[in-house]
């Protein structure tokens, strides 16, 4: 333990605690910028500097460990001057177009400028004049806004193991960039969007597709259908000013209707369908000696990462499309036929917690309905923008139900949005389909929670099924490396690209921290407990679609509409723009 004095008040903390955290215990909020609670210490912005008695230099509170007897001052003239000059230096190099910026009012630099009462910048306003990157359908980079805090670098390397973004050049020319200034489309970027959550400013953001949706909504000839992803029902509230972890499914449905969507249906329906298809695929692989372990395929960031870095392991990935793409394929076939609407008039929108979903929807093979299966993917943040613009207030909304038939779902589908959820949902169904008897206990606690890699063993009939769950690509990499070495002794693996699973997706509200990911995940498990059906195979709408349309799991129609294939990719891919229905070059 160490007793330290901060601004004249004593506090006892563990030796090695940072000054920042010690001060927090005293209720002192030292300003930070490059600090992020979930990421490696950077200590580069020098905003959090403090004075330590006996030291000539100021030290960064975010990094400097306390020692017993240390005396710290957080607000001396020297400290205040250093913070303000360093902030001034950053502002002088930053576009001052806050009003037009995607991060207006959620920008940490802007908040600091407000906090410090910056009224004057004495240095010449000079931008670096770097080109923007609009090369992918998912993520936009505006390097001129970058303040070089390197949080995205830590996220991309330490957490997501993609290693796409890093600092290049030096001095005032320093820029965080993919290698050789390439676009994100020319490197092995998973498009997970976690860098967006790391970014304190508007240097990285999602591609905004709201205008295309507004246009479709305004077009009387379009039948606009929206699907809502599992994780969005516990996060959209944050866009509307509610605290994290509120289950707002009913209000979300009502809000989407008020925006003008003709049908509000649910990705949870196709999440249940995924479980039926994927569960049967797993049982088939088990029975027929197929490639094991089988890995889940719902997470498009993981799929792209796998295609770049583990092309040799693609045969392990389930051929099931993600719920989003199953929905897209069905809405322009099954639903169109049922509703008597020409599929060309259907405009299919998905509400997703995810940036990689934008890329997935654009993959050339995702046109099995004969049309682009999903026309536009909106992230949670984009929908938040639309709802606020439309003046829809959650507090005034009633709770409404999703539309039939693709709006009926189970608790198993709801938990898809949390790490371990797909595995748990699959186990609930696989057990009962394989054994024909009821699960003794429906909750698989071992695969829940935020531990990086989770393992469990489940007795299904005579077989001990060994499963593993990884979330965040860094954790996924550990398991995939084992698999490559032949040391992954599992039957079934769930991989989710983003830490915490889809509740922590790159399209989710800002801020998204580990703590918030956990809260949203818990809300999904709460939603699961409150639903009448909690196993995918018990969903009556699923039984109906097999009876009316699909025939049987893994059948011919399923094969055509619900399953897909993967494409080995290089780490430095050359860009081949393929359009819907054509093979990528």
């Amino acid at each position, binding site marked *: 333990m160490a007793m330290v004095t901060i601004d004249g008040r004593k506090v006892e903390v563990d030796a090695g605690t940072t000054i920042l955290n010690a001060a927090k215990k005293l209720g002192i909020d030292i300003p930070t910028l490059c600090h992020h609670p979930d990421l490696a*210490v950077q*200590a*580069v*912005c*020098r*905003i959090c*500097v403090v004075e330590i008695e006996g030291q*000539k*230099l*100021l030290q*960064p509170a975010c*990094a*400097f*460990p306390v020692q017993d007897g240390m005396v710290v001052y957080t607000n001396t003239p*020297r400290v205040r*001057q*250093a913070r303000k*000059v*360093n902030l001034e*230096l*950053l502002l*002088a*190099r930053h576009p001052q177009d806050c009003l037009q910026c995607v991060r207006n009012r959620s920008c940490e630099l802007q908040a600091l400028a407000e906090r410090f009462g910056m009224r004057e910048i*004495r*240095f*010449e306003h000079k931008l670096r004049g770097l080109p923007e990157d609009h090369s992918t359908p998912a993520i936009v980079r505006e390097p001129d806004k970058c303040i*070089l805090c390197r949080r995205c670098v830590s996220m991309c390397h330490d957490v997501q193991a993609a290693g796409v973004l*890093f*600092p290049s*050049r*030096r*001095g*005032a*020319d*320093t820029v965080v960039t993919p290698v050789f200034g390439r676009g994100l489309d020319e490197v092995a970027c998973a498009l997970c969007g976690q860098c967006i959550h790391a970014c304190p400013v508007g240097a990285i953001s999602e591609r905004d597709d709201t205008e295309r949706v507004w246009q479709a909504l305004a077009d009387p000839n379009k039948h606009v259908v929206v699907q809502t992803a599992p994780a969005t029902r516990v996060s959209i509230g944050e866009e509307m000013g509610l605290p994290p972890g509120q289950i707002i499914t009913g209000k979300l449905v009502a809000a989407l209707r008020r925006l003008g969507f003709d049908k509000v249906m649910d990705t949870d329906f196709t999440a249940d369908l995924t479980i039926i298809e994927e569960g049967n695929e797993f049982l088939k692989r088990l029975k027929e000696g197929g490639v094991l372990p089988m890995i889940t395929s719902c997470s498009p960031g993981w799929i792209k990462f796998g295609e770049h870095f583990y092309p040799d392991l693609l045969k392990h990935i389930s051929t099931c499309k993600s719920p989003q793409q199953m929905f897209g394929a069905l809405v322009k076939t099954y639903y169109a036929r049922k509703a008597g609407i020409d599929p060309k008039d259907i405009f299919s929108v998905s509400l997703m917690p995810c940036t990689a979903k934008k890329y997935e929807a654009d993959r050339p093979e995702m046109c099995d309905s004969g049309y682009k299966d999903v026309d536009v993917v909106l992230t949670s943040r984009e929908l938040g923008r639309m709802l606020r613009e439309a003046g829809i207030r959650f507090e005034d909304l009633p709770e409404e139900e999703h539309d039939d038939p693709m709006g009926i779902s189970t608790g198993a589908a709801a938990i898809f949005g949390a790490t371990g959820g797909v595995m748990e949902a699959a186990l609930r169904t696989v057990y009962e389909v394989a054994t024909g008897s009821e699960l003794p206990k429906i909750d698989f606690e071992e695969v829940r929670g935020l531990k990086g890699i989770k393992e469990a063993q489940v007795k299904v009939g005579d077989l001990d099924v060994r499963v593993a769950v990884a979330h965040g690509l860094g954790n996924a990499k550990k398991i995939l490396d084992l698999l490559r070495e032949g040391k992954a002794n599992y039957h079934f693996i769930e991989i989710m690209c983003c830490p915490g699973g889809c509740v922590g997706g790159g399209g989710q509200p800002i801020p998204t921290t580990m703590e918030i990911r956990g809260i949203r995940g818990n809300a999904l498990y709460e939603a699961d407990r409150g639903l009448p059906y909690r196993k995918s195979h018990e969903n009556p709408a699923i039984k109906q679609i097999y009876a009316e349309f699909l025939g049987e799991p893994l059948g011919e129609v399923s094969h055509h509409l619900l399953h897909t294939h993967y494409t080995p990719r290089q780490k430095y891919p050359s860009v081949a723009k393929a359009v819907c229905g054509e093979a990528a070059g």
Partner: protein
Amino acid sequence: MEFYRSHVLVCGGTPCVLEGCKGVRDALIAEVKRRGLDREVKVVETGCLGPCDLGPVIVVYPEGTLYQKVRVSDVPEIVEQHLLKGRVVTRLVGEAPQAGVVKYEEPTYLGVQERIVLRNCGVIDPESIEEYIARDGYRALAKCLTEMKPADVIEAVKKSGLVGRGGAAFPTGLKWSFTAKADADQKYILCNADEGEPGTFKDRLILEGDPHSILEGMAIAGYAVGADKGFIYVRGEYVLSIERLGKAIEQAKALGLLGSNIFGSGFSFDVEIRKGAGAYVCGEETGLIESIEGKRGEPRIKPPYPGTEGLYGKPTVVNNVETIANIPPILLNGPDWFRKFGTERCPGTKVFTLTGDINNKGLIEVPMGITLRRVIYEIGGGIPGGREFKMAQTGGTSGGCLPKELLDVPMDYFTLPEHGSALGSGALLIMDASHCIVDIAECFMRFFEHESCGKCTPCREGTARLHEIVAKIARGEGKPGDLELLDELGSVMQVSSLCGLGQAAPVPIKTMLKYFRDEFEAHINDRLCPTGTCGI
């Protein structure tokens, strides 16, 4: 990218600037153009090429021909003969700079200098281990391994009062004791030979002139702290140093003075060379470590310090070349002998590189605490043409600039900081009264803008802004408030930058503002250069 058959590199280091390299550069560009060669030959101003005492220096590639003391009047001949006809202009080639440029024959040198570090430079053949051994080489190592315990070695170094000669002046024995105490399966000794400070070339000359003394010193350090592996991180441009070190390592291994079980003591030690790629910041110890690990050359956050968590996360001693060169004589002759030189607070000698407006340029070794006046007028032979002294920059480009009022301040690691300057690496740049202070400031600040690694805000942005503001003043575009802003920004950089680069970068401008403020004010208020030499 365009391709040229030939590149002419003009050294743009500070000493060469003082020698008029800009005129040479401009003349080269003009002459190349006049001859219609501008699509074939590219003239490039580079950073310091090293031989600061031979400036202005230019190198013509692809041949790699080094021309020294090039004047504007030499330019037509170089272009005509070398670039057009392919003939080397032999009268401008001279001999390659090597160890021992000091002129021994002058009695004043012998009178004042004490040669501990340079004891072998210019005396022995650096490529002969036998000659090194003949001058007591490897005896100190033998003594340590056979007669002393590691703790005794550290104690002796502590007692000697030796402090680091790279610039930070940290007590060497204390540094070693941290690593010795650290519990680890692997420890390292790193020799910092990434001498990047413009105007400093002492490490190069030590490495070229006496490479074995470095190997011996490193092995002693390894024995003291329990490390069996060493790396010498050498500035990549120091081709001759690298070559001679490589030979020295081979020779020492062949004789069993490096390798396993040295002198049958059970102690093993190996040394490898690592070449730097030209980044100034890699001279910072943690930047150097990152570079050896193959990463982007950037400093780490401290703590943890390298002594406990350094190369590959293992306890690591990082010592400068000159520091290590002091080790064998200290162990051989004892700490009391060492303390006879220099001052009480700062025992020993200091190697200085004398550059600028001074008659005898080159390398000298003098007792710590000698005054600037004695160095300039007794050893340096005074200022050419008997011109008036204006200022001396001590410690390299990141050092302070001292006016004539401070000529009698003793130069050591503790006194100079009291006057806003630093002893640093030991570079001494002398300037006479003909130079414009703003011009010089602009040159210094441009250097730091270029060399900042870009990691922390105050250094990355601050170095650029210091340069921007000074450049404006130099162009006659300064405005009231600029000097206060320079002062304030400089102070913030000094206390809040992540590493020594950003902390030291404002030192020259701060001291210039302190001692030569009126000259800046004349540029701003009167749009006038008091020396009448700058372009305003």
